[in-house]
């Protein structure tokens, strides 16, 4: 296995799928960059984060489509491409731009199949970037996957490491249902081992990163790394953590989570989104229903506060769930006396 960055792993997945299936196309702002302009360099960026680099020179303008700033139509056109038999990948540069394309995501892509009585498919992938870590402030840092997880008819994938980034993206592209794919901006440079060649990670199957008896920690996306750090701290106190990365929040691998809580009796959910109606609370509620009898302590959610994302470094740092806060929450569940 080669060591690759999260960005490289995603880029590789795109190249593989473009090669494999000529119906795969990508569209968005600056997915290649350099359309128009004065340099004559036709691929001037390969995506603002470089994820789609190399596609244009290799697969051409018909399949690598730069668009005007028109997000409703980036997603909307992807929907139409999908209904017409293509496998489009629409890129929203930041998850916050769900704001200007929400209708095409929730009222169109997610609903076609149901509204049309099962007589169509819309295999669109909407790739986007989310999260804090770049001091990009309130309109360029949101998580927003809870909002999409809420909507029936679309799937939600949130890779936390390079291998999953590759494997989940390939799965997403081959999936016949609409998928929204959340890439964490602060993970693009993160390195990890990535299996070569064809590699698929199934949806709805959690990754159990560590087994432990005292507390289950479910963490999403970048939070998985923070939870790993917390786990090390907790180990020093002799607290054994079972660490679960759901990988996709819709579908959600309830079974893995419930099985674990049945064993540990304690749950902490870590979600970098705002708390209200979050994935953290969603998972907590599922457990409070289906694994109630196993619970030995209050379920703790470690999330961002109920505030927009602030700009200043100190504030963004305070905003984002930290390894310390995760460890403290886990410890509180272990120390809880009924």
């Amino acid at each position, binding site marked *: 296995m080669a060591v690759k960055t999260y960005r490289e792993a995603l880029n590789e997945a795109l190249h593989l799928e473009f090669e494999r299936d000529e119906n795969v*196309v990508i569209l968005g702002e600056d997915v290649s960059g350099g359309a128009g302009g004065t340099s004559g360099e036709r691929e001037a960026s390969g995506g603002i984060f470089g994820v789609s680099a190399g596609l244009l020179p290799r697969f051409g303008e*018909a*399949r690598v*489509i730069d*668009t*005007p700033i*028109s997000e*409703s*139509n980036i*997603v*909307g*056109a*992807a*929907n*139409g*491409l*999908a*209904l*017409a*038999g*293509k496998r*489009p990948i629409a890129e929203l540069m930041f998850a916050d731009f769900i704001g200007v394309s929400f*209708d*095409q995501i929730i*009222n*169109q892509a997610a609903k*076609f*199949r*149901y*509204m*049309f*009585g*099962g*007589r*169509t*498919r819309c295999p669109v992938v909407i790739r986007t970037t989310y999260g804090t870590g770049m001091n990009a402030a309130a309109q360029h840092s949101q998580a927003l996957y809870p909002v999409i997880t809420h909507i*029936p*008819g679309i*799937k939600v994938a949130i890779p936390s490491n390079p291998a999953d980034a590759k494997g989940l993206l390939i799965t997403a592209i081959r*999936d*016949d*249902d609409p998928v929204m794919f959340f890439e964490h901006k602060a993970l693009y440079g993160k390195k990890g081992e990535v299996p070569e060649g064809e590699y698929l990670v*199934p*949806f*709805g*199957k959690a990754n159990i990163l560590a087994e432990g008896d005292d507390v289950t920690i479910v963490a999403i996306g970048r939070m998985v790394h923070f939870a790993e750090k917390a786990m090390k701290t907790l180990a020093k106190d002799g607290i054994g953590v079972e660490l679960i990365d759901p990988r996709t929040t819709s*579908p*959600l*691998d*309830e*079974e893995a989570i419930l099985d674990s809580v049945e064993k540990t009796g304690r749950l902490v959910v870590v979600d970098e989104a705002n708390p209200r109606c979050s994935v953290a609370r969603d998972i907590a509620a599922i457990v409070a229903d289906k694994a109630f009898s196993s619970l030995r302590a209050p379920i703790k959610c470690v999330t961002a506060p109920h505030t927009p994302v602030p700009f200043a470094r100190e504030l963004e740092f305070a905003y984002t769930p930290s390894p310390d806060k995760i460890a403290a929450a886990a410890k509180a569940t272990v120390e809880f006396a009924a």
Partner: protein
Amino acid sequence: MQLSREELLRAYRQMKTIREFEERLHVEITTGEIAGFTHLYAGQEAVAVGVCENLNDSDYIISTHRGHGHCIAKGCDVKGMMKEIYGRKDGLCGGKGGSMHIADVSKGMLGANGIVGGGPPIALGAAMAAKIDGTGAVSVAFGGDGSCNQGTVFEAMNMAVVLQSPIIFVFENNGYSEHTGADYAVGSGDIAGRAAGFGMPAACGDGSDFFEVHAMTREAVERARDGGGPTTLEFKTTRFFGHFEGDPQRYRAKDEVKKHRETMDALKIFRDKVTKAKLLTKKAMDEIDAEVLKLIDEAVEEARAAPPPTPDDLLTDVYISYEGGIQ
């Protein structure tokens, strides 16, 4: 271009089918058997049919909340549609969509759409697919005068020009968006003119005249198939009923509909033209009328008798596959 007798008969049959489908629904709705919002297309038949008679099954259209006419014109099964409107299990969408979401992707009919302005971006995508694959297919986005003020529609126009996509934006200007006049809501008062500003050919025609609609669309379709990019067509038309069934229409002059039924009836105008030009006989069209009425009768009867979906159907068709199932 001269249409053959067969083509004329088919066009007439299509328009008549739409008309009777809607006139009948207008009556049936009063029985309370049909649920939901129903927006009738009667009065605008020449647009749907004049456009779609230029298309074949590999071409795409997308429709609006007022979709029955476009569905019929693009070849959706009339009985399946009626069952869908009645919410039946073997309706075209299994009773899950209803009047506002009738679709038949196998016919290139990408759906009625309850979101004003929801369709054009999707139609653009279908046009892009046709261009990528070089099939020569075109895509038509139907919309009303009200829809042309939705930002998504303007975006689609610009992107279609940028990508030179084979798409035709058809705006049926029936004078109203719900209870608001187009003379108020379209700032420039000129939908086609606004589209021309986007850098594409655009024209305005008489939406009550099948022949005008057909000829204008033909030109746009040919240009699109030849790689000439998008076109916008605005057609002035009228709706014979309210915005939805139950609308008291207080925004309309009392005799407006009556007048329009006299002067803007696409079927009358068609009949006059083809009989005057001796292209079709009154008798041939009367025969079609009888056949259409029979079809609609049967459609209503079968729909009324058809079984509804069962609660089990609630959880199917959300995804093609979903690990863990739907709860």
